[in-house]
């Protein structure tokens, strides 16, 4: 006894799908095109999203948010510090200054500094500034300790790039840098903006510059005639430079959202109503708005894919009905020898599903290749975006699989039921 199980029937049907190559490729193309479009777009979007913003999710979990002070002239920095206590990690003085300028025969570059105040929560593991957050580590020296805060030491923590520029391979720890302090001064009765004096700061630690800045810096150094590098200079919050006590704007990064309400209540008292003093950006909100943008883009691609699939469905229906008509003799024979309407219908549905699985696999492979190659070329052309990495999500694959197979299934129902309803004796005479 030999048993002809389901596998035999599936193998039989599998051969059927290749019977008419042109038809097979037409149907395949109709399904591959939207599948490929959808997966490539999703893979690319996911990759960009996760390359850029996945870190943000981490900060969102840390409950971080930033406050941007628009104009703090009415409240001295000291006041804010008293008010906020330990609730912030860093704040940035808006005192961007020109730290140094380098000129060679064919290249010039300028280093600007951002003065960033830190409190005792600053460990160096995370660079938390107003507009970026990066994981980091102290690779030489140390961060600030309690006595640094108490004694208001003129200490500074710099990054590896600045250390490399200023000291090359020499050990920077213990060395002193002088930073120009900018401000307004009177000259012959006219207010002018410029360097007021130089503030010496002793280097106690070196922080790993983030990879992105490193790659960008090297790239600029190799390719650009003129460029600027922004470096962060970390000082203790207790170390006050009198000239920058009234910054134009300060960005605070907090690690505890609970205090924002208390702060705003105190902060707003005594200030004319209608004055917009600060702006709060929760990482929650930042992540949410980015996610929303990506979601909208994704929905757009789904819509395009669905429209393409609908067009394909219409053509699949007509192609398949044509196929059924062409195979009417075969259908008659199968029915005469015992294939019921249901079995006949299932046969055609299985054939349709096999074609769509083919289409799905082709779109999957092509999309993965396309995204990998695309990102490879992209990274090659933009070395500073070295961290752009392909991330492929299973949800996308499932979604595409369902869309392709469902539309193929729906499109095959009509021709399949047409095949099922074919009258045997008519079909037999057909040959």
């Amino acid at each position, binding site marked *: 006894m030999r*048993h002809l199980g389901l596998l035999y029937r599936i193998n039989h049907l599998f051969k059927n799908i290749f019977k008419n190559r042109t038809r097979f490729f037409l149907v395949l193309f109709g399904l591959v095109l939207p599948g490929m479009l959808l997966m490539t777009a999703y893979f690319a979007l996911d990759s960009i999203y996760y390359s850029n913003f996945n870190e943000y999710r981490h900060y969102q979990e840390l409950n971080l948010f930033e406050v941007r002070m628009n104009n703090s002239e009415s409240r001295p920095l000291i006041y804010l510090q008293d008010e906020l206590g330990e609730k912030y990690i860093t704040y940035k003085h808006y005192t961007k200054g020109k730290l140094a300028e380098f000129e060679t025969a064919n290249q010039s570059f300028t280093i600007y500094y951002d003065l960033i105040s830190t409190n005792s929560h600053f460990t160096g593991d995370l660079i938390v500034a107003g507009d970026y957050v990066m994981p980091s580590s102290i690779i030489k020296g140390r961060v600030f300790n309690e006595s640094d805060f108490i004694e208001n030491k003129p200490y500074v923590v710099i990054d590896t790039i600045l250390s490399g520029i200023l000291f090359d391979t020499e050990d920077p720890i213990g060395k002193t840098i002088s930073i120009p302090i900018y401000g307004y001064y009177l000259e012959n009765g006219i207010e002018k903006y410029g360097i007021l004096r130089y503030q010496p700061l002793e280097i106690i630690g070196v922080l790993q510059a983030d990879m992105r800045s490193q790659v960008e810096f090297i790239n600029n150094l190799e390719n650009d005639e003129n460029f600027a590098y922004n470096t962060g200079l970390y000082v203790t919050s207790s170390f006050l430079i009198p000239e920058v006590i009234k910054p134009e704007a300060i960005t605070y990064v907090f690690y505890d959202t609970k205090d924002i309400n208390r702060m705003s209540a105190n902060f707003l008292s005594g200030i004319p109503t209608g004055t917009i003093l600060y702006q709060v950006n929760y990482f929650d909100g930042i992540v949410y708005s980015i996610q929303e943008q990506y979601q909208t883009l994704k929905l757009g691609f789904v819509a395009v894919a669905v429209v393409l699939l609908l067009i394909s469905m219409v053509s699949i229906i007509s192609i398949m009905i044509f196929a059924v008509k062409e195979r009417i*003799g075969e259908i008659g*024979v*199968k*029915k005469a*020898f015992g*294939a019921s309407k249901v*079995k006949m219908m299932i046969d055609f549905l299985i054939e349709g599903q096999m074609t769509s699985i083919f289409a799905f696999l082709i779109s999957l492979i092509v999309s993965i290749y396309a995204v990998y190659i695309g990102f490879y070329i992209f990274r090659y052309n933009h070395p500073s975006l070295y961290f752009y990495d392909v991330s492929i999500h299973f949800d996308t694959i499932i979604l595409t699989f369902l869309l392709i197979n469902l539309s193929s299934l729906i499109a095959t129902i009509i021709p399949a039921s047409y095949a099922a309803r074919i009258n045997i004796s008519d079909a*037999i*005479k057909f040959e």
Partner: protein
Amino acid sequence: MIKLENVTKSFGDLIVLKDISVTINGGDYITIMGKSGAGKTTFISMLGLMDRPTSGKYLLDGQDVVNKLDEEVSRLRNEEFGFVFQGYNLINDLTVEENILIPVMYGRKKQVDVEYLDSLLNRLDIKHLLHKKVNKLSGGEKQRVAIARAVVNKPATIIADEPTGSLDTTNRDAVLQIFRELNKEGVTIILVTHDISLTKDATRSYRLAMGHLI
């Protein structure tokens, strides 16, 4: 046993079969003759459950099959009948073996009696053709493959619609010999033919004319 009572079949206004009553017993060898367009194919299509009568009763082994569901009728067709068609009606792009196994594939048991099939292939002299595509075969070979397909499920009844119509005498005699042997083994044979000489094997011969079976 097949029993028809007052069976009528019409296509629109055209009444092809009128009020036919007939009983066919197990082991019968029946021939049906008639002019072209007399309704022979229509009649045997109905006998073989490929078509339903417009009115009348059809009892298969005592069971009314006219109002049975498609699933059940298909099963009966698969298990009780084997068909040999005038135009062979093989599936061209399949091999001989795949064609022969079609009834098994759509059957309930899906079991092939390998020994039986082997002896069948030897008897029909098509064993060497098993893996050939059927469109490469000669007419006689095709008809023998069609016969193998008709009997692979060991049906009680074989219905053949002018099976020898397009064969030469040697092939015709071979096919008739097979039917004779199958009939000896107890298989009911229902044969549609134009050839009066074929009626000599029959236990009963009918003629279809003006919609009546006489």
